[in-house]
Structures are given as structure tokens and as C-alpha cells.
């Protein structure tokens, strides 16, 4: 493939790289906090991607000011809407994760998931 | 169906036999009920004389009656009975031809004589009801076997004979007796099944399983199956050969005979082994047909086996110290004479074989009876104990000597005639080198026979000093020998009931040798018919 194309869409490339970082963090990190951060990076990367897709050069945000009504003046509003929804979702998910993390930390005084499971094994004994 | 009466002897003997068995069983149950658990072994011990008398009377009476009927049936022409159909085109079918006559006569004579003999002998074995019960059963089965007119019928009674006769072997109930009986049973069954294997194939490749002189093999069916059929036939030969003590399935004979009561072993090696011979005759000459085998590898293998057996049997007999075992081995070798005669597939050989069937039956039966007498009267089993026995019971020992000579085949005894025919058959048959090897082996084995039979006579009459000094027996043994020779001064012949059969047999052995004409003609007639 021609890298020129890649260079031309550098923003998408960045988004993908970010997504990868976030994904691998969420998957591989032991520490719960880092996992959560990874999660957020991942989501944000996706939103960046969406926003990029919605953006059209030289147009304004789809907010009606000084009475310009023609559609050509604005960027595509739907991705922005999606991003907003997505942010809401990711916020709520992050909140849930955090609360879980707190509970676990209170019980086991560690943020390392594997340690926790070993502790649990001990509990059963 | 009018000929149904020829089965009357069978029914008679079977009926009485079963009756006796049930009687003995009932006694056991009663005994068990009566004194339990106080009196152990609550069977057989308290036998009342009266009971015994009736048993003997019943048994012998039945035997005689059955004998009369049988001979009557046998010699009243070719009769045939079809009982019912076991399977499609396989009836239970009896047909009396010359072979049947020949065998059934031998059987009857021996059976009656041995029966009389055992009325006395069995007294120290006990369980006489059971013994005579099975004894009669076997007789009935044997008659059926000889009368049977097709292969399946023959197989049926062949197996029944095995099953009915093995209680005779384990009669005394000792452990080794039971083991021996089982060995006998399983060898015979193994043989029978090998036979059955052949029968399966013959049923397919033969036009019918009914006995026909010269065979019923249908060529068109065979044509494709050159491969499997000879194998099947050879298997049948070996299988039925098991009964006849042919190598490689001979091992049961020396085990079974010594432990069986002498009458039983007499019957066994006199008659039962001959049923193997009968089966082989029927298969080879009446189903497969000699022409199919002549010159094939099957014939040579068979012949080789028989000769091996002949030689090996007499060699083992020569080295065997126990008298009955020795006789058993000699049976092994002698019966293979017969088989050799059959194997050469020539008329003379066949004649010789038939003759030897009769002669050997008489002779070997006599020998076993004498052995029985030695055992019964002075509890002697080993050959070296028999020194000086002649002083004590000369008549018996004379009979023994006569039998011995007959078995060796010294003219004018009967054995000579049959062996002469056998040798003739071998020499004139075109079987290549075998026609010289065969007679040679027979000769050697005859010498060996002399070697293992005659010393008993000598030592019996002249317990020379060399006996007490020469043999490497331990001193205790020596003393016993001397004691015997001393005690042997006073003669005490056995009871008449034991002696008479012996004498009759001796007379037969001699007589058949003196005027063999009638027998040879009869046998030759059959031979001409089948070949």
C-alpha cells in the first residue's frame, strides 16, 4: 500500500494507534487503575476517529449562529452526536469500574487482579 | 419306518442307563437328607449287597438283551431309518451297511465281555450305579454311532459319546482323575470341532452328507475351491484323529487310561478310539472319496502323521514304567497302524485297517483287563512290581502273553494277519517312497512292541535274580519284589466273572488268527466296494 495515503490520513492512523494502546492496556495491565485508563484511552481513540470522519474542511460546527441555514455551512452533525453518546456511555462504564475497583481495594488492599484471585483461592481453602 | 425296531437296543440301554443314574442321584439326595451334616461323603459308602446284585443283574441283563437285539438288527440286512429332519435336507438318519456291521459287532462283543468283567471289578471302585448307568448310555450311543447313515447324525452321536464316556474316566473322583477326564473331554471336543469345521464345508461342496461308498463330493462345486477344501479335510482328519489318538492330538490317551477304572480304559482304548477310526473311514471313503485325496499333499501329511504316531507311541510305551500307561501308549501307536492303513488309500491297506480294528480291539481290551486284574487282585500298577506274578496267576499271565504276541503280530495270532495286509497295502500302493518307509516303520514299531510287552511275561514267570540285583530300584523296592516272588508261590486265580471274559478274548485273539479267511473276505468286500 502506498504510505502517502497513510500519511494523508495521519489522524486516523493516530486514532488507531491510540486505540491499540488503550486496548492492550485494558487487556494486559495488572493494575486495575491502569486498566481503566487504558479503557478510556481506547474509547477516546474511537471518538477521535468518529469526529475525524464527521469533520469536513472549512466548515463550522453545526450550531446555528448569525442565521446561516444552508447545510453546506456545517459539518456532519451525526458523528458529533455519536461521540457525545459514546462519552456518556464511557463515563458511566468508567464510574462502574472505579466503584468495583474501590470495593476490591477495600477487601483486599491491592489493585492487582491476579493477586486478588490468588487471595480468593486462599479464602476457599 | 418299519425298521424303527433296530433302535430298540439303543432305547433299552439308554432307558436303563438313565434309570440307574437317577437312582444313584436319588440315593445321594436321600443320603444328604438322612444324615447331614454328621456323616460326610454321604454317598456310595453304605451300599447294600442286595442293591448291588440287582444293579449287576440289571446291567448285564440289559447288555445281553441289547447285544442280541443289536446283532439281530445288524445282520438282518441293510435297513435304514429316518427319525426326523434336524434341518432342511439334514435328517437324523440311520443306515446299516457292512462297516456298521463290522464295528457294531466288535463293539457288542467287547462291551458285553467287559460288562461282565466289571461286575466284579467295580466292587472296589464304588458308585457302581453311576458307572453302569454311563456304561449303558455309552453303549447305546455307540450303537447309534455305528448305525448312523449321514455325517451330521454321526457327528451328533460322536459328541454324545464323548460327553457320555467322560464320567467313566473320572469315575474314582480323585483330582487327577477329574483333570484327566477334562483333558480327554476337551481334546475330544477340540477334535470334534475341527471335524465340524470340515463338515460345514463339505455340506456346501458335497451333493449330500449321506454316506455313499466312494464319496459324494460334487466336482462342479469343488472346482473353484481347490484351496480351502483340502485344508478342511485335513482338519477333519486331525480332528477325528484326536479320538483315535493320532499325533498331534494324542496326549489325552496316556493321561486318561491309567486313572480310569480298568474296564473303562479297556472300553476306551478298545472301542472309543475306534469310533475315531470309524469317523475317519466315513469321511474319507464315504463322503470325500479316496480319489479326491489320492496323491494330494493331504494324503502325505496324513500318512506322515500316522507314521510319526506309530513310532512315537511305541517308543514312549517302551520307556513307560506304569503298565496301564504303557498300554495306553501302545494303543496310540496301534491305532495309528489302522490310520496308516486307511491313509494309503489302497484296498489291501483298507482291509488291513478293518482287520486291525477288530483285532486290536480284542487284544488291547484283553491287555487292559489283565492289567485290571493285576491291579484288582494285588494292587500292582508298575511293571517292575509284576515280577513273579506268573506263579500266582498263571492263566492270566498266559492270556497276557498271548495278547502280547498278537499285538506284536507273530503268526499265527490275529495281529499278524492284519499287519500283513497293512504292509501289503503300503507296498502295492503308488505312494512313492512312503510304500517302503511305512512298512519299515511298522516293523520297527513291532519290535518295540515286543520290547515293551514281553519282558513282563518273562519276569512274570522267571523273576530271575538279575531282577532283584540288576534294576536300579531302591532297597525298599527290592524287598517288596522279593516278598512278591515269595508270596507268589500260592496260586490264586481271579474270580470266574473276571477270568472268563479274559479267556474268551484270548480265544478270539488266537482264533481270528488261525482262520482269518471269513474276516478278510468280509473286509476285502467292503474295501472293493469303497475303492
Amino acid at each position, binding site marked *: 500500500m502506498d504510505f502517502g495515503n497513510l500519511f494523508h490520513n495521519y489522524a486516523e492512523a493516530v486514532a488507531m494507534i491510540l486505540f491499540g494502546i488503550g486496548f492492550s492496556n485494558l*487487556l494486559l495491565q495488572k493494575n486495575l487503575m491502569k486498566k481503566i485508563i487504558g479503557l478510556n484511552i481506547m474509547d477516546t481513540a474511537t471518538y477521535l476517529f468518529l469526529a475525524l470522519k464527521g469533520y469536513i474542511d472549512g466548515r463550522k460546527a453545526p450550531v446555528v449562529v448569525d442565521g446561516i441555514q444552508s447545510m453546506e455551512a456545517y459539518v456532519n452533525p451525526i458523528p458529533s452526536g455519536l461521540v457525545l453518546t459514546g462519552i456518556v456511555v464511557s463515563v458511566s462504564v468508567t464510574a462502574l*469500574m472505579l466503584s*468495583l475497583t474501590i470495593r476490591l481495594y477495600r477487601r483486599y488492599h491491592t489493585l492487582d487482579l491476579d493477586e486478588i484471585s490468588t487471595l480468593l483461592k486462599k479464602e476457599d481453602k | 419306518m418299519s425298521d424303527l425296531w433296530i433302535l430298540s437296543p439303543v432305547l433299552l440301554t439308554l432307558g436303563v442307563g438313565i434309570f440307574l443314574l437317577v437312582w444313584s442321584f436319588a440315593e445321594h439326595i436321600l443320603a444328604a437328607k438322612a444324615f447331614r451334616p454328621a456323616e460326610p461323603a454321604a454317598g456310595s459308602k453304605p451300599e447294600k449287597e442286595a442293591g448291588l446284585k440287582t444293579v449287576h443283574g440289571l446291567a448285564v441283563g440289559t447288555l445281553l438283551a441289547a447285544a442280541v437285539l443289536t446283532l439281530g438288527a445288524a445282520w438282518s440286512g441293510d435297513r435304514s431309518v429316518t427319525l426326523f429332519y434336524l434341518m432342511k435336507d439334514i435328517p437324523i438318519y440311520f443306515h446299516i451297511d457292512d462297516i456298521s456291521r463290522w464295528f457294531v459287532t466288535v463293539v457288542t462283543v467287547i462291551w458285553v465281555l467287559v460288562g461282565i468283567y466289571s461286575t466284579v471289578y467295580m466292587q472296589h471302585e464304588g458308585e457302581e450305579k453311576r458307572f453302569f448307568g454311563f456304561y449303558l448310555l455309552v453303549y447305546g450311543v455307540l450303537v447309534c454311532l455305528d448305525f448312523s447313515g449321514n455325517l451330521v447324525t454321526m457327528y451328533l452321536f460322536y459328541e454324545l459319546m464323548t460327553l457320555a464316556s467322560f464320567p467313566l474316566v473320572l469315575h474314582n473322583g480323585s483330582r487327577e482323575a477329574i483333570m484327566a477326564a477334562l483333558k480327554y473331554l476337551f481334546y475330544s471336543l477340540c477334535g470334534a470341532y475341527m471335524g465340524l469345521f470340515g463338515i460345514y464345508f463339505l455340506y456346501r461342496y458335497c451333493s449330500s452328507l449321506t454316506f455313499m461308498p466312494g464319496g459324494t463330493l460334487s466336482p462342479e462345486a469343488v472346482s473353484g475351491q481347490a484351496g480351502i477344501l483340502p485344508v478342511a479335510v485335513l482338519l477333519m482328519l486331525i480332528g477325528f484323529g484326536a479320538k483315535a489318538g493320532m499325533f498331534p492330538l494324542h496326549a489325552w490317551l496316556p493321561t486318561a487310561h491309567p486313572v480310569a477304572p480298568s474296564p473303562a480304559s479297556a472300553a476306551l482304548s478298545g472301542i472309543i478310539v475306534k469310533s475315531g477310526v470309524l469317523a475317519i473311514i466315513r469321511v474319507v471313503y464315504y463322503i470325500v472319496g479316496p480319489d479326491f485325496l489320492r496323491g494330494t499333499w493331504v494324503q502325505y501329511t496324513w500318512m506322515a502323521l500316522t507314521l510319526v504316531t506309530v513310532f512315537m507311541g511305541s517308543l514312549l510305551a517302551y520307556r513307560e514304567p506304569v503298565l496301564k500307561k504303557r498300554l495306553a501308549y501302545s494303543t496310540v501307536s496301534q491305532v495309528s497302524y489302522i490310520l496308516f492303513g486307511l491313509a494309503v488309500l489302497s484296498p489291501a491297506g483298507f482291509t488291513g485297517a478293518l482287520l486291525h480294528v477288530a483285532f486290536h480291539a480284542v487284544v488291547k481290551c484283553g491287555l487292559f483287563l489283565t492289567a485290571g486284574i493285576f491291579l484288582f487282585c494285588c494292587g500292582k500298577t508298575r511293571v517292575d512290581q509284576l515280577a513273579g506274578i506268573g506263579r500266582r496267576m498263571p492263566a492270566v499271565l498266559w492270556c497276557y502273553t498271548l495278547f502280547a504276541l498278537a499285538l506284536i503280530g507273530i503268526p499265527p495270532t490275529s495281529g499278524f494277519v492284519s499287519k500283513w495286509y497293512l504292509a501289503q497295502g503300503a507296498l502295492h500302493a503308488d505312494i512313492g517312497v512312503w510304500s517302503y518307509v511305512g512298512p519299515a516303520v511298522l516293523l520297527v514299531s513291532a519290535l518295540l512292541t515286543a520290547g515293551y510287552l514281553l519282558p513282563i511275561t518273562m519276569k512274570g514267570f522267571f523273576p530271575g535274580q538279575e531282577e532283584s540285583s540288576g534294576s536300579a530300584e531302591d532297597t525298599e523296592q527290592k524287598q517288596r519284589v522279593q516278598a512278591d516272588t515269595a508270596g507268589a508261590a500260592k496260586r490264586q486265580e481271579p474270580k470266574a466273572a473276571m477270568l472268563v471274559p479274559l479267556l474268551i478274548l484270548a480265544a478270539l485273539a488266537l482264533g481270528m488268527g488261525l482262520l482269518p479267511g471269513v474276516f478278510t473276505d468280509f473286509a476285502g468286500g467292503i474295501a472293493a466296494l469303497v475303492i
Partner: protein
Amino acid sequence: MDFIRNFSFFSIVLSLFSGPLSSILGRKWAKRVNTAEIILLGLMSVAVLWYVLQTGEAFVYTMGHFPAPWGNEIRAGVLEAFMAAFFCLIMLLCMWGGVRERESEIEASKQNLYYIMVNLLLCSLLALIYTNDLFTAYVFVEINTISACGLIMIRQNGRTIEAATRYMIMSLLGSGLLLLGLCFLYDLTGHLLMSNIQEAVHALVANGQYQTPLLVSISLMCVGLAIKSALFPFHTWLPDAYGYSTVSSAAILSSLVSKGYIFLLVKIFYRVIGFDIISSSKVIHVLFAFGIAGMIVGSVDAIRENDIRRMIAYSSVAQIGYIYMGFGLGTTAGVIASIYHVVCHAATKSLLFIAASGITDVSGGSRHFEDLTGAGYRNKLAGVAFTVGSLSMVGVPMFAGFISKLYFAQAAVGHTVKMLPTLIALAISTILNAVYFMKTVIRLYTPVKDGEKKAGYGTITVRQQPVKAVALILFILLNVILGLNAEPVIGLIRTGLEMFS
């Protein structure tokens, strides 16, 4: 009758708002409201089903009357309606079956929270089933995840929280991939409504543009949903989550939540991409391979497990494997079999969970294998129920499992390459199922010697737990009906799939 068209939308909204309602109500009332609501939703879905069958075609309900491509749509076909009704039924029975445990295992204060969660879950499920808009689907996937997580962790102990966390992480990975995938799709097609996307995709394929991105997005979505529905090897979170949460949660999770995702996957196959494209792409081979691997590995793990709940949990890994194997065959027959298996597994697995709880109750609360000896005599109904469930899972004729096995096999025979692998895998996994399920059943009916009587070996009769008994009996009936007379269900599925495209 056209007002029935609104039902599907109403049912979503209703369940959504009965959540807050039950938060202000007391525990008892919350329960009643919840029950009533589930029944109501079920009836509505049935009505929708009836209506769709009447009209013979799916209808589209545009929210707020914005036409496509801007507005957000709901679409109800036979399959959607049937699934909705069925999910409601299962949900109801699961709730009934777990009443006692809920009340004993969950702190009183948290209990109407539980009902909120259930309502949310049901709402998200219905939304997943009905929605015609991919992004909506994504949103409700997340809601689904959150509420499911709540169901797991509501029973407060370390295990459940840890399980919830693991579950959360896994499904977040999954939904992340899903989101990315549908972003790609949106990027490629510029649409979010399934029907429009499909047209666009077909157009793309027709003139051969953007094949790689399309493939990428398809695989992203497949993998995402596979992770969320615990396909091997993404099943690590599952045993804990199902094994330690309260019974009805376990039942609901195993029989509904994962099934919701699977149903979404089916919709993506048929409504979004178009099945012909899917079946020609490589993705399904991957699904097939992992499906078969799951069938075997799940069963093996289950055999090695000696905690009955975890054993059942592992067995659902195997069952999910069946379903994906069916997809992997890449034939409509395979998909039909898979959907039928979704149904039958939902009916069976929740039965097993509830029966297992009934069994552990009479075994001193222990779920350990040795302690269950003779439990079948102590709690007869539960024993029978467990036996029925096991037989169904093993695939003995006359129970639901047999039919789906039959359909899988027949679907497989239509396929030249994957035929023998599938059949052999079916046979082997049948044997493995037999090994662990029958082992348990025999254990249940092995009488316990007086010597080894353990503490807490009580007996429970039907009268003591009427609700649970009713639930169990209904489940058993459901299994037998599905097993003996599968024709109507299959017919619905078939027509539903036809309506999809």
C-alpha cells in the same frame, strides 16, 4: 389493530421506566411490579408476534417520525417478536426460580436495586432485539453490560466482585471492538440504520470497493460480540460470574445476556452485512474453529470441575461453542440450528442453575460434588429437574437438546468440508457432556449411607417452595415441549430469518 405496532417501542420504554419506579417502591412491591411488568412485556411481544404473523411482514417503527436515514428506527419481525416473548418468559421463570436465594443472599436494602437492574437488563435486551440502528444497539450493549455486572456483584462477596470486574474488563474489550467496527462501517457507508447500511454494503461489494476495511469491520464486530458472549477462549470470566452470583442472576446471565449479544450478531449477519457476504468471508471459518474448540474445551473443563455451579457454567461455554459452530457453517440451516440452540440452551441452562440451587440447599449449602450424594431423594423436584436438564444437554431424544443436535448435524451434512469435523465434534462433546452431567445425576441418586450423613442434609418438599416448584415444572415442560414438538419454533425461526433480509 395497528396500535400493536407501538407495542415493541412501548415495551422498551416501559421496562426502562419501571426501573426508577421500583427504586422508590418497597421491596415487596418492587418484586410485584417487576413480575407484572415482565408478564406484560411478554404479552405485548406475543401480541406483536401475532400481529406480524397476521400481516406476514416485518414493520418498521420510526421514533419521533424522523424518516431514515436520520431518525432512529425500531423494527419488529417474527424472529424479533418471538425472541422478545421467549426472553420475557425465561426472565420471569428465572426470577421466580431464584426468589428465595435473592431474599436470603442479598441485603434487604439492595433488593429493589436488583429489580432495577433486571428491568434495565430486560430493556436493553428488548432494545437489542428490536432496534434497527447500529449505534443504538451499541449503547444498549453497554447498558446490558452494566446491568449484568450489577446482577453479578449485587451479592456482596469477594468472588462476585472479582468476577464482575473480570466480566467488565472482558466485555469492555468486546464493546470497544464492536464500537470501532461499527465506526468503520459508518465510515464506509455513511449510515447507521441497518437496512441502509446493507444497501450501501451491497453496492460496495458490487463494485468491489473497500473490501479490506469491510472485512476488518466485520471481523471487529464479530470478535467483539464473540468476546462479550464468552466464546472460547474469552470465557475465563464466565465460571466465576455464573458460579458465585445469586441463582437468578446466574440463570439470567447464562440464558439471556450472552444470547442477546448472539442475537445481535445474527442481526448484523443478516440485516447489516447480508448473509451471502458473511458466508463468503473468512471470518466464519474462525468462528467455526473457535466454536468447536469451545465445545471440547468447555466440556473438558466441566469434567475437571467438582463444584456443581461452576460445572454448569463451564458447560455453557461448550454450548456457546455449539452456537458459534452453527454460525461457522455459513449456511442458513446452520444459523437456524444455532438460533434454535439459543432457545433450547436458554430453557435448559436456567433450569439447571435453578435445580442446582435447589440441590445445594438440601446438601448443607455446599456445592461440592461429594456433598450432593443422594440429594435427588432429599429434594425430589430439583432432582428430577436437574435430570431433565442434563438429559436435554446430553441430547437425549424427547428433550430440547436432541433437536438442536439433530439440526446442527443436518446442517453440517449439507457442508462438504466441515461435515465430518462437525459430526465428530458433536459426538465427542455429547460423550463429554454425558460424562459430567450423568456423573452428577448418578451422584444425586446414589443413596447416602447413614454413616456419612452430613450436616444440613434437610429435605425440601414442593410445598415448601411453591414458586420455585412452579418455575421448575414450567421449565421442565418447556424442555419437553421444545423436545417433542419443535416444528412451530423452527418454523418461526425460519420465517423470521426470511423476513430479515
